[in-house]
C-alpha cells in the first residue's frame, strides 16, 4: 500500500532522509536522479532505490518536481521526504502544489503517532516552536540537515531503473560557480564562539581565534558579520538562515540576540554572553553574562586563556 519516498540531490542528506523515513513504519523507496554513486550509496544503506536517468536539469525546479510527481504516482507513495536545504525547500512547494499536498519545511523533529506525523518547526521567526501535522493524504515533508543521522550500511538494498516522461525546460544553466566550502561545520562544534557586530573590528579576530583555539572551539558568527562584513563564509552563520547548533558551551561575543540568531544557539548546554549593553536580549537567555566592552575584554581574555 502507501509508502514513503525520499529524495535529495545531496547524498549526505539523502542518507539522513532514509533514517527519518524509517520512523514512518511504511515501505521506503529512495529516488535518485542522474547520480549513480548516490544510488549505490543508498542501496548500500539497505534502501530500495529507484534510479532515474535522462536529460534532466537539476536547476529546473519544475522539471525535478515533475519527475518526483510521476515517480510518486508510479510507486504508489503518499509521503515524500525531501531535504530542507535550499534546493529541497524550493522543490517542496512546487511538488506539494502539483500533488495538492500539504507541505512543511525546515522540520526539526518528527514524532509518529499512528497515522499522524507530528513535526516541529520554528514559528514567528524562531520566537516559538510550532507542532504541526498535515491533514491531506499526500504529504511533502522537508527535513532540516543534521536532524537525523545518516543511515548506516545495511543489507537487502536494490537498484531499479526507472524512466519518466521528459518535459521541456524553460530554465537553462549558463554557468556554475562553485563556492569555496569550509572544511569544518560549526553545527558539529562542542564549543562554539559566536562573533557578532559588537566585535566591531577585524583587529579583534586574532584574539577571538586564539580564545577559540584554547577552548577547542569553532568560530561562527551572526548573519550580518558574514553577509554584510564578509568576515566569514555564509556557512559560519548561526541561526534561522544559517546553522542550528547545540554545542556543550557557547561563548557569544557582541551579539544582540534577536530571535533569528537565538534559535541557532538555543540548544547549547551552557550559554555565556559578553555584551556592552546590559539590556541586550542575549543576556536574558544566558547562563552567564558579562557587561563589558569587547575591545577591552578580548585581549585580556586571550592572555588569561593562553
Amino acid at each position, binding site marked *: 500500500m502507501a509508502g514513503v519516498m525520499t529524495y535529495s540531490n545531496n547524498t549526505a542528506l539523502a542518507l539522513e532522509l532514509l533514517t527519518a523515513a524509517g520512523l514512518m513504519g511504511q515501505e521506503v523507496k529512495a529516488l535518485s536522479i542522474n547520480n549513480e554513486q548516490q544510488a549505490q550509496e543508498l542501496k548500500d544503506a539497505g534502501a530500495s532505490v529507484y534510479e532515474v536517468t535522462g536529460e534532466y536539469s537539476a536547476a529546473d525546479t519544475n522539471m525535478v518536481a515533475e519527475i518526483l510527481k510521476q515517480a510518486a504516482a508510479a510507486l504508489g507513495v503518499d509521503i515524500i521526504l525531501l531535504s530542507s536545504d535550499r534546493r529541497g525547500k524550493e522543490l517542496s512547494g512546487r511538488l506539494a502544489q502539483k500533488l495538492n499536498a*500539504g507541505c512543511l519545511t525546515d522540520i526539526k523533529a518528527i514524532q509518529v503517532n499512528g497515522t499522524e506525523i507530528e513535526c516541529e518547526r520554528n514559528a*514567528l521567526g524562531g*520566537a516559538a516552536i510550532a507542532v504541526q501535522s498535515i491533514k*491531506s493524504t499526500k504529504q511533502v515533508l522537508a527535513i532540516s540537515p543534521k536532524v537525523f543521522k545518516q543511515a548506516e550500511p545495511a543489507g537487502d538494498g536494490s537498484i531499479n531503473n526507472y524512466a519518466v516522461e521528459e518535459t521541456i525546460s524553460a530554465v537553462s544553466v549558463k554557468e556554475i560557480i562553485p563556492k569555496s566550502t569550509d572544511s569544518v561545520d560549526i553545527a558539529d562544534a562542542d564549543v562554539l564562539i559566536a562573533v557578532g557586530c559588537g566585535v566591531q573590528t577585524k583587529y579583534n579576530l586574532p584574539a577571538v581565534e586564539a580564545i577559540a583555539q584554547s577552548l577547542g572551539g569553532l568560530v561562527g558568527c551572526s548573519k550580518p558579520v558574514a553577509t554584510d562584513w564578509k568576515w566569514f563564509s555564509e556557512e559560519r552563520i548561526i541561526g534561522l538562515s544559517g546553522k542550528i547548533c547545540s554545542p556543550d558551551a557557547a561563548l557569544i561575543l557582541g551579539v544582540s540576540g534577536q530571535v533569528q540568531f537565538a534559535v541557532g544557539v538555543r540548544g547549547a548546554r551552557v550559554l555565556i554572553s*559578553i555584551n556592552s549593553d546590559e539590556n541586550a536580549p542575549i543576556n536574558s537567555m544566558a547562563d552567564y553574562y558579562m557587561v563589558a566592552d569587547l575591545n577591552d575584554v578580548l585581549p585580556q581574555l586571550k592572555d588569561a586563556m593562553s
Partner: protein
Amino acid sequence: MIVPYLGGNDEKREAVLKGVRELMKIVVAMKQIPDLQQIRIRDRKPILDGVPLTFGKIDKNALEAAVQIKEAVNGEVVVVSVGNEELEDTIKEALAADADSSVMLIEDDIEKMDSAQTAKVLAELIKQVERYDLVIFGEGSGDNYSGQMGSRVAEILGLPQAGYVTSIEIDGIAAIVKRSLEDQEEILEVKLPAVISVAADLNEPRIPSVSKVLKAGKKPKEIFNLDDLDIEVCEALVATSSSLAPASNRKGIELKSVSELVEVLKSEASGGN
C-alpha cells in the same frame, strides 16, 4: 548590462515588434507580519496583541529588486498581498518605497490560512494584473519562513521559477539570474514570464522620503475579499496543535571580571572532550 526589454509574453512581444512601446510589469508579493522585535513571551505564549504589523525584511528586498529593474528598463511595479484589515495601512510602506500600485485581498481571519490556501488566493490576485512579466517573492516570509509560496504560485500559474536569487538582469525576453545555493552559484536564463524568489540581503531597501510617504496614500489600490474572487479555497491542509516559546531555565548569573569569566570558561567550556 541590460538589453532593451522585449516583453515576456507573446502579445507583448508582438506589440514591441510592431514598434509599440510596452512597459515591463513586475509583480511583487509581500506579506505583512508582526514586528518580531516587539513580541513578548508570557507563560511561553507569544503575545501578539498590540504588536504593530510591517512587511517582512526579505519582502522589502524583493520590492527593492523590482523597483531597481523598473528603473532600469522602464516598467511598473505592482504589489500583491493577502492580509487582514490593517493591510490597507501597511501597504503604504510599499507604495512609498516606489511601488506604483497594489492589489490586495483583505479578510479578517487571514492568519488561519495555510500556505496552500494563501497560494491559491495570491495566484488569483496576480492574475488580476494584466500581462505581467515577472513575479518576485521573498525566499521566506518573516514569520513563517517556509519558502513555499513562490514555488506554489509558480506551479498554479504554470511559470518557470528560480529561488534564492541574488542578482537579476533582464535580457530581452528572459531574466538572467544568479541563484545562490549552499555549495555553488548558478547563472540561469529563465524565460519570462517567470517567478523569482530573492535571497535575503541581495540589496539595501530604500528608505522613502517624507514626501513619498505622503503621496503613497494616493497611489492606486485594488481591494478584494474572498467573495469577489471566482475561486474555491480548499480546507487547510496543515494543522497546528501548539506554538510555544521553548522552555528555558538559564541561570542568568552576571560575571563581574575577566577572572570570573576565565573560571567559568575553564569549568564549563573545557572543549572538545
